């Protein structure tokens, strides 16, 4: 993904999303995208930029503030054979859509005996920083991963964002597509031609021998940063990006953990009943793994996300806290280690000025 091939360009995360949707809308006239503000000048932070002009208001349109009904509308359109992409500027608003997503989208294919399908993509942005606070910062993907019938994607870079989006649009099932707002500032080399990152295959983002770090969504980036900090202490961390949370590729994680003997799952959400719980439980259920294996996890502090930056910072795992945790896993009797704060800064902290 960091390699530059002939047809790869450096694209931002939203530009890659825009390109994916554009290419699929051009290829398949059943695809349409809608949601609050998809057609305005901000264009969902440019991720829907230019689509209205190219495809017109029947295929690119804003809606009333009626998330429940608009989700049902999308499910109905999908059942009728169209391929809707419903966009939410913040994931927190998905809580207004739960009846349609859980009772209808997820169950329709099954409860009607397989005679109808729901090829639906729900784009939902996870907020962070600059005072996003209690109701603009939640990552709810584990709620959706819990429900049979839904698929869940959480790509951590621009290239995967494009590939996952194309795969999601072409999938005949409802896909909850998680986009972390901080990733919108990242760039990656992205193939120009359409391609799919299909559900159910994780990637080893960086190899290592001493510990396996599984990062979810934006936490892949934080884990890669922590890996650099750990290298200074002679610790070699392998970083795995699940990419798709449902279906989840446990094989890749198990293979890595079998090698390193240590697993730290870093989630961009709460740990209780979350993806980290799921991954650790799956490891615990795997019989041939050593009993001496170290299993740890990190996630949001078990509280509501505060707005003030001094305590908001403590709410999230960071490269420093991840690295520190790994150091303690490997050196349980040594004094705790804190990386140099200057080196541990998140890349986006120097770029981001807000407001959203």
């Amino acid at each position, binding site marked *: 993904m960091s390699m530059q091939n002939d047809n790869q360009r450096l694209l931002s995360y939203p530009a890659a999303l825009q390109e994916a949707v554009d290419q699929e809308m051009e290829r398949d006239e059943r695809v349409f995208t809608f949601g609050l503000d998809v057609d305005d000048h901000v264009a969902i932070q440019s991720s829907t930029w230019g689509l209205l002009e190219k495809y017109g208001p029947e295929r690119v349109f804003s809606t009333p503030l009626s998330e429940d009904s608009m*989700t049902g509308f999308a*499910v*109905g359109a999908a*059942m009728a054979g169209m391929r*809707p992409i419903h966009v939410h500027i913040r994931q927190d608003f998905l809580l207004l859509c739960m009846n349609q997503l859980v009772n209808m989208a997820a169950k329709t294919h*099954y409860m009607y*005996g*397989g005679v109808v399908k729901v090829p639906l993509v729900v784009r939902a942005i996870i907020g962070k920083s600059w005072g996003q606070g209690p109701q603009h910062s939640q990552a709810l993907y584990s709620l959706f991963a819990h429900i049979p019938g839904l698929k869940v994607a959480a790509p951590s870079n621009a290239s995967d964002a494009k590939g996952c989006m194309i795969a999601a649009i072409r999938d005949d099932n409802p896909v909850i597509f998680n986009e972390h707002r901080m990733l919108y500032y990242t760039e990656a080399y992205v193939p120009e031609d359409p391609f799919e990152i299909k559900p159910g295959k994780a990637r080893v983002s960086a190899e290592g021998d001493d510990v396996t770090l599984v990062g979810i969504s934006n936490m892949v980036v934080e884990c890669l940063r922590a890996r650099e900090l750990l290298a200074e202490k002679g610790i070699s961390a392998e970083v795995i990006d699940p990419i798709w949370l449902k279906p989840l590729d446990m094989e890749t994680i198990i293979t890595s953990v079998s090698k390193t003997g240590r697993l730290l799952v870093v989630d961009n959400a709460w740990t209780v009943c979350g993806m980290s719980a799921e991954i650790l439980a799956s490891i615990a259920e795997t019989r041939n793994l050593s009993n001496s294996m170290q299993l740890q996890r990190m996630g949001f502090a078990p509280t509501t996300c505060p707005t003030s930056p001094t305590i908001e910072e403590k709410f999230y795992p960071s490269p420093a806290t991840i690295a520190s945790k790994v150091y303690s896993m490997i050196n349980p009797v040594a004094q705790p280690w804190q990386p140099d704060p200057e080196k541990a800064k998140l890349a986006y902290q120097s770029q981001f000025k807000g407001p959203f």
Partner: protein
Amino acid sequence: MNRTSTISKNAENDEVTRLYRSLKRIRRIEERIEEIYHTDKIKSPVHLSIGQEAISVGICDILNADDFVVGTYRGHALYLAKGGNLESFMAELFGKVDGCARGKGGSMHMIDVSANVLGCSAVVATNIPIAMGYAWKLKQQGKGDVIACFFGDGATEEGVFYESLNFAALHKLPMLFVCENNGLAIHAPLEKRWAHFDICARVSGFGIPVHELTEMDIFKIRSTANEVVRRIRAGAGPEFMECHTYRWSQHVGPGEDFDSGYRSRKELEKWQEKDQVARLAGILDSDLRARIDSDIEREIKDCITFAENSPFPRNDDLMTHVYAE
């Protein structure tokens, strides 16, 4: 309307004959469901339409094969009136693999895509926006097809109903909203749920034309729907019909509940005087009626035999259709 003079010949497929056949067929099917229920062969909560059939029958009579309907968990009448397959309906009730949802949906989730009957839902008002998604596609196709969306008075208390009215009106979607107002949400009467119940006034506020039908007269229901749907086909946008009606059976399950105290038999008797099955039976030529009745009985007998003979789903059917391949 005095129909007697106009239907003396009772042609096989004239309006009265058609309506009677459909009404009587649904009534008898549900009465048979009530009779079978105690045997535990139907292990699915049944919300019977008995007493309310004329709304589905009257409206479906003017719909074309290419039009769609979507209903609720009290959806037997609509499924059958729109031409849903009877054998797969009964097999679904029996939990058999030849059921319309392969035994995975049951009474509350009847579906027949070949008859354009969308799947019914057990969560009140949930299907209203689903219908809108279909209507969006129908509008884009531009062939003048419509979708009729049926729901009860309880559904008009859900927020999604109002969200959907607004969006349907905004985009002039080809939708007929049909409120089957039986005055009860489970056992709660309107007086316990509304300070002021005037659903037509509320819907009218969205810029949607409304039609209130208080008498459960199948001919009026049919003729109103006919005019309304003609306008919807022409692209005039959604319209709303409120049809007052009465649920004869208990909310869920077979039989009556007039000894439970929340409503009186007198109420039932008032509505039974308007029974459209009896009304049309009285209009029809008796020989023709007898022939229709005997056809219906044979058809019901056959579909029950079909359902009984159909196998139950295999164990591995548990895990099929979780995801579309």
